[in-house]
């Protein structure tokens, strides 16, 4: 900012003409300092890069999910660049004369021929193609699972709402990017997918047929869709994806990573390891691991064997036509939507049987996902910054909502395999479809309820553990023949994980009228808010307070009677005064000793 007196701070010392630091340095230090000095003289980057290298990131396996997404995207970019050297994005018809004998002499598009050439005639081409496809599938899996992690731990709360919104858009664009990619080879399966996509576009009211003609540059299939999809797949969407991803990751660095609650971790600190050297090795190494696993899969498991499908022709089709997995839910929705949703009115056709699943589903789904943080913020009225993650059990309603959404998604995805299920399980496809239609409405509420109950039970178990301690499995018999199990109190570090969270209380509805009895302008929305707040937080389990723990200890519940107490409650006084209890105390202090 302003020119200040020249002090020899760490960054400045890297400059070539600066005096040598007083501490003796090794040759390596001088070498790094020399190169860094040259760059820093021209960029002044030492300070910023040095800061980034010292940056601390918290450690947890679930934080690697986003990394998997990032690395598989990089693998896709690398292998994709390779593929562009040989792939010919043209629908021009040629006769195949390559080394794959079953297709010799068959008329096909140049796109399909060049994909065959990559698979059979270009050395190592197949492995690159397979890595590209597997990495793309992994990319979308990783994005989705990463999103679930962020959702269930409440990492989307202030100040990270913006990054959640960006992430949701990234996830949606990844679907489109994937679809554009697997449509390019122009094989029978992907061509059938494009055929269906053309049908989807037609279902848009008023402009449907125009949309179809604009996208395909005339009647389906035409010769334009392959080069157009190619431009979208290799240029337009990757640019947007990489751009949004960059903002996404810069925001993570700027806001600092969230961390799971634990001893020593607070909302005001980040506890973890620095980039240099730990994360440079761990995260850098992890890139190679992800790449290696994808390469292994590509070597051993064939994905998208386009040579087996044949070139696209609008007339033939194969049974078991399924899209790549991430389009499964949309395809499944199309299979479940009943035909009566199409009707004719005023001389125009309304094809809601197609439009709901093919045009509306994805934007509506991602719209809801995008808006969720703002809904929760409105319900809780919580405007504080949150850097400590929630354990999913500590927010049962949110966890339940998330699981219900996943259940609905899974029903749709299974529906995309209704024909396969019917064949493999020897069931009627009609029964399966009817069943899935019902499940789409029934399953999410059931899953919500079960999840919420499980969360509440887990919280009660936490309370129980804190109050009673851990069951040691040691059975102790008292002098008068009573049995009880020795319990071991939790150490304060383990206990902290179970008592650190705060529970939201449902918002109370204020009277909604001011002192003159005039209804507040937002009375209606406040009433709604109080209702939703009740829905969220009515059932809650408060964490154990020190007073409760004190009470538990006071009442001798570090031991637990195995036999039921007689009616009227035989007091445990005798137990406490018996010699065996002293014994137990002795072991307890032993344990604390080490």
């Amino acid at each position, binding site marked *: 900012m302003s020119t200040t007196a020249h002090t020899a701070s760490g960054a400045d010392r890297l400059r070539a003409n600066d005096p040598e630091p007083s501490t003796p340095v090794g040759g390596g230090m001088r070498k790094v300092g020399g190169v860094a000095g040259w760059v820093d003289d021209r960029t002044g980057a030492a300070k910023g890069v040095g800061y980034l290298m010292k940056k601390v990131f918290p450690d947890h396996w679930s934080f690697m999910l986003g990394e998997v997404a990032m690395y598989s995207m990089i693998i896709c970019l690398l292998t994709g660049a390779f593929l562009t050297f040989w792939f010919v994005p043209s629908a021009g018809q040629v006769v195949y004369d390559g080394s794959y004998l079953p297709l010799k002499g068959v008329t096909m598009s140049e796109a399909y021929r060049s994909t065959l050439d990559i698979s059979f005639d270009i050395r190592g081409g197949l492995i690159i193609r397979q890595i590209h496809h597997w990495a793309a599938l992994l990319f979308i899996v990783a994005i989705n699972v990463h999103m679930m992690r962020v959702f269930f731990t409440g990492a989307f709360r202030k100040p990270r709402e913006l990054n959640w919104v960006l992430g949701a858009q990234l996830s949606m664009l990844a679907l489109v990017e994937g679809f554009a990619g697997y449509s390019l080879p122009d094989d029978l399966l992907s061509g059938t997918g494009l055929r269906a996509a053309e049908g989807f576009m037609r279902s848009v009211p008023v402009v449907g047929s125009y949309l179809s003609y604009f996208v395909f540059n005339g009647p389906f299939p035409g010769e334009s869709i392959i080069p157009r999809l190619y431009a979208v797949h290799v240029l337009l969407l990757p640019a947007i994806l990489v751009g949004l991803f960059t903002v996404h990751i810069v925001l993570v660095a700027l806001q600092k990573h969230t961390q799971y609650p634990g001893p020593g971790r607070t909302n005001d600190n980040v506890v973890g390891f620095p980039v240099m050297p730990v994360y440079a090795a761990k995260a850098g190494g992890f890139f190679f691991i992800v790449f*290696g696993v994808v390469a292994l899969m590509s070597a051993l498991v064939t994905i998208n064997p386009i040579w087996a499908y044949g070139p696209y022709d609008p007339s033939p089709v194969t049974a078991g036509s399924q899209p790549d997995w991430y389009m499964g839910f949309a395809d499944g929705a199309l299979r479940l939507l009943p035909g009566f949703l199409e009707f004719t009115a005023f001389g125009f056709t309304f094809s809601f049987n197609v439009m709901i699943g093919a045009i509306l589903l994805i934007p509506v789904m991602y719209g809801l996902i995008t808006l969720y943080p703002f809904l929760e913020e409105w319900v809780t009225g919580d405007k504080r910054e949150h850097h400590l993650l929630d354990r999913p059990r500590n927010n049962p309603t949110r966890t339940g909502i998330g699981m219900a959404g996943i259940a609905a998604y899974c029903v749709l995805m299974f529906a995309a395999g209704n024909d396969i299920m019917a064949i493999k399980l020897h069931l009627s496809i009609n029964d399966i479809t009817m069943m899935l239609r019902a499940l789409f409405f029934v399953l999410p509420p059931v899953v919500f309820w079960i999840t919420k109950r499980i969360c509440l039970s887990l919280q009660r178990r936490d309370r129980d553990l804190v109050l009673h301690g851990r069951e040691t499995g040691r059975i102790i018999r008292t002098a008068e023949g009573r049995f009880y199990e020795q319990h071991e109190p939790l150490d304060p570090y383990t206990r902290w994980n179970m008592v650190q969270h705060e529970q939201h209380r449902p918002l109370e509805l204020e009277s909604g009228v001011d002192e003159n009895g005039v209804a507040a302008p937002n009375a209606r929305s406040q009433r709604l808010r109080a209702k939703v707040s009740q829905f969220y937080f009515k059932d809650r389990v408060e964490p154990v307070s020190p007073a409760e723990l004190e009470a538990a200890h006071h009442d001798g519940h570090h031991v637990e009677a195995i036999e039921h107490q007689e009616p009227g409650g035989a007091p445990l006084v005798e137990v406490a005064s018996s010699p065996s209890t002293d014994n137990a105390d002795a072991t307890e202090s032993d344990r604390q000793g080490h």
Partner: protein
Amino acid sequence: MNEHGTEHGGQVAQPGPEGFGREAVRLDQGHIVGTGGLPERFDNPGFPPHIPRAADLDERAAKRAEKQVATLFGLSMLGTLVFIVAYFAIPMENRVFIPGIGLANLSNVVLGVSLAFGLLGIGIGAVHWAKTLMPDEEMVEERHPLRSSDEARGGFVKTVLTGGTEAQLDRRPLIKYSLGGALGLFALPVVLQVAGSLGPLPKDELSKTMWKKGDRLVRDPELTPVKATDVTIGSVFHILPESIKDSEHVLEDKAKAAVLLMRLEPEAIKVAKERDWGHDGIVAYSKICTHVGCPVGLYEQQTHHLLCPCHQSTFDVTQDCKVIFGPAKRPLPQLKITVDAEGYLVADAPFREAVGPSFWERG
């Protein structure tokens, strides 16, 4: 947090002087009146004691870890070398049987596995290095509120507002509104160019196919004409119009004109129109699904059901291809057929309605 007297703050509750257990209580319900000088919430206990790893304590363990890491890096080099050799040495067409996987392309398998070794060696080696030898004592970085200071915020607002004032935006509404208009309009040419030039207008093309009266039905893909006597009961033919031979846009025409030809016992046909438009139990229906346009490729001979493999719409051929299950709404359009003088099947009329998926102006 710790409002209620700090003398007990965060300590593990100790048994009272009177010992444990004076009375039995329900533990899930607090029963002590008042907080007894205890804080409302537990205090963060701070970091647990650090547990050193084997390699921190024992130089031999550290040496072992070093060797393991170096071995993994060595494996990586080996994998890369195998890749390079295999790239040149293995012919592309060689196949190999791998138990559990089946017949596979040898070049692909060796290249992929050696590449994986090259990558995994580096990756696992680096992670192992970090986990065994690099510092594992957690570090703490403080967070600071993200928001700028109030002065900085005020300064920002002031800069924007003064900028506006200095540009005389408030005093010269003419500039303000004309600029708004210009900025609002300038994107239109770009949008118009793209939207206007992407493709032609559909006109009535979606409603028409190349079928016309007298067009012979030919087999797909052989393009040989079909005699009525060739079509035995229970058989099904994939059909195209003979005029497809002269088409300049074969795929586009095929995508609309593909037809399925089936022969049923005439008494099995329940709809009079279907019987009239066919020939002696031979009926021709559009093969393009009325749902989203996949070819309706699966014919069940016994039940006379047609099934679309994409979304499982099921059409009953005995009932004029009415939808009996699945997401499609409309029946498949029927092509009226007859036989010509030589006994070949021909179209007696074009399709009466648009084939394929629905669209707005279809009616």
